[in-house]
């Protein structure tokens, strides 16, 4: 059964078509990359899938761990909020959007645990330190403020904060954007390891074909609000069928 499934999504911002007739299916433990150029509707699609933006047409269905199917946009807001802080996670391009910059690293990681009802300080702290170690942040930095962290560390802290509740589904919006190449490589390696080990399903928005190739099982190519091609990552990238995909793939410098 699919974890997340969207049918016939459509959204217009005035005269601009942001999404048109978009279908998406995501299975348990699968990483789906959405690629396309700037303004093709990638981030809008991510926001609609995660229930943050309501579409003009179509539905998004989420299957919870008990097998019940929910229409994400018809859910009452308390239920959606609960979903967002337990079963789901959202990784922003800019970690500052997600992190509390005036709260220590440990507090940032612990917030989702406390929001879910954890009330034992020592356990929260142990888990926070465990997660900082998992994302390769030194445990001695647990009481430091995020503003003393580098860009790559902030992004890793954001990932620790998101994964601490063991979500089943993570939405990632350009998680490696704005980082230098060597930091990107380490971060990608980290995300790949964590996602594989925890069996997390992820929707990953990126304009970087290399990121998609490294992380994603399947790929969906977007152009002007439509999905023009979808398939297994290697299949789409090695044998692109749609003219736009061919352009996208050929525009990447060959190593």
């Amino acid at each position: 059964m699919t974890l997340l499934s969207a049918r016939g999504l459509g959204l217009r911002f005035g005269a601009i078509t942001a999404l048109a007739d978009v279908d998406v299916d995501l299975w348990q433990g699968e990483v789906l990359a959405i690629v396309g150029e700037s303004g093709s509707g990638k981030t809008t699609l991510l926001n609609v899938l995660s229930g943050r933006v309501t579409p003009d047409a179509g539905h998004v269905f989420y299957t919870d761990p008990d097998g019940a199917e929910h229409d994400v946009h018809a859910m009452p807001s308390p239920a959606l909020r609960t979903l967002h802080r337990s079963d789901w996670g959202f990784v922003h391009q800019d970690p500052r959007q997600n992190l509390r910059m005036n709260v220590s690293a440990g507090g940032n990681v612990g917030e989702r645990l406390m929001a879910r009802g954890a009330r034992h300080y020592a356990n929260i702290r142990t888990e926070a330190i465990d997660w900082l170690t998992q994302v390769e942040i030194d445990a001695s930095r647990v009481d430091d403020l995020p503003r003393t962290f580098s860009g790559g560390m902030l992004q890793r802290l954001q990932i620790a904060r998101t994964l601490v509740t063991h979500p089943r589904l993570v939405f990632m919006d350009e998680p490696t954007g704005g980082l230098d190449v060597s930091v990107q490589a380490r971060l990608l390696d980290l995300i790949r390891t964590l996602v594989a080990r925890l069996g997390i399903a992820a929707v990953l928005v990126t304009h970087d074909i290399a990121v998609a190739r490294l992380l994603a099982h399947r790929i969906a190519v977007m152009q002007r609000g439509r999905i023009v091609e979808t398939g297994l990552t290697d299949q789409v990238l090695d044998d692109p069928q749609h003219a736009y995909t061919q352009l996208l793939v050929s525009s990447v410098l060959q190593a």
Partner: protein
Amino acid sequence: MTEGYNFAYLDEQTKRMIRRALLKAVAIPGHQVPFGSREMPLPYGWGTGGIQVTASVLGPNDVLKVIDQGADDTTNAVSIRRFFAKTAGVETTTHTADATVIQTRHRIPEKALRDDQIIVYQVPQPEPLFRLESSRVETRRMHGLSDYGLMHVKLYEDVARFGQISIAYDYPVMVNGRYLMSPSPIPAFDNPKMDRMPALQLFGAGREKRIYAIPPWTEVRSLDFDDHPFRAINAPEPCGLCGATDAYLDEVVTDDKGGRLFVCSDTDHCAERRDAGHVGKDGVP
């Protein structure tokens, strides 16, 4: 009673409006109810919220006590007590046991309150989350969804930084297991008194235009961690004048050589104990 004022200063329509807000507040314990706060003849921050609530619940047969940080004889307490003596002609007292309505700024009397008494708190800032989340739209949503993880982040930060929860006053509480509430800037020492108090507790914030309430016998729990439980903080000495060890104490610097005197913050409580013959180490029999 001075002629020319409506009973208890406010006009009847305003009192009706405030009573409606009070009823709603009592029906939803800990929930902040907006109300049309009026200009009062004292500045914001001096108890404009409390004074309006008091004016609305006061009847001709009530006996009013007003305290400011526990004391009956400070400017704020004296002027508000005189204000109601003048505009409502009600009897006033300094004895907790004799009062039917007690307006307070930042303390709860030491003597346990009864079910025929009402305590009115003056509240500067009704929103317990205001230092953590600046958007009122967002804090209202958090209250609506009972989403209070953020408050625990603040407690976590305290323990991580200082080894303990370092909130000495305005210590956040959960009312009836549902709403996070600011108890107004009373010392954390007073928090346990709010739990299942027989008296009706009303809170008025004049500048912020909010009223909230705790009905009698309602559960009020101070936030804490399982392994860092709530503790009431107090000076580690008995009262210098009456020798009380169970009362909240003020520290008074007495000279420039490090001399200090700890005295009960509740002046009525201290006076009653001294009348009963209790003498502290700095007291005069």
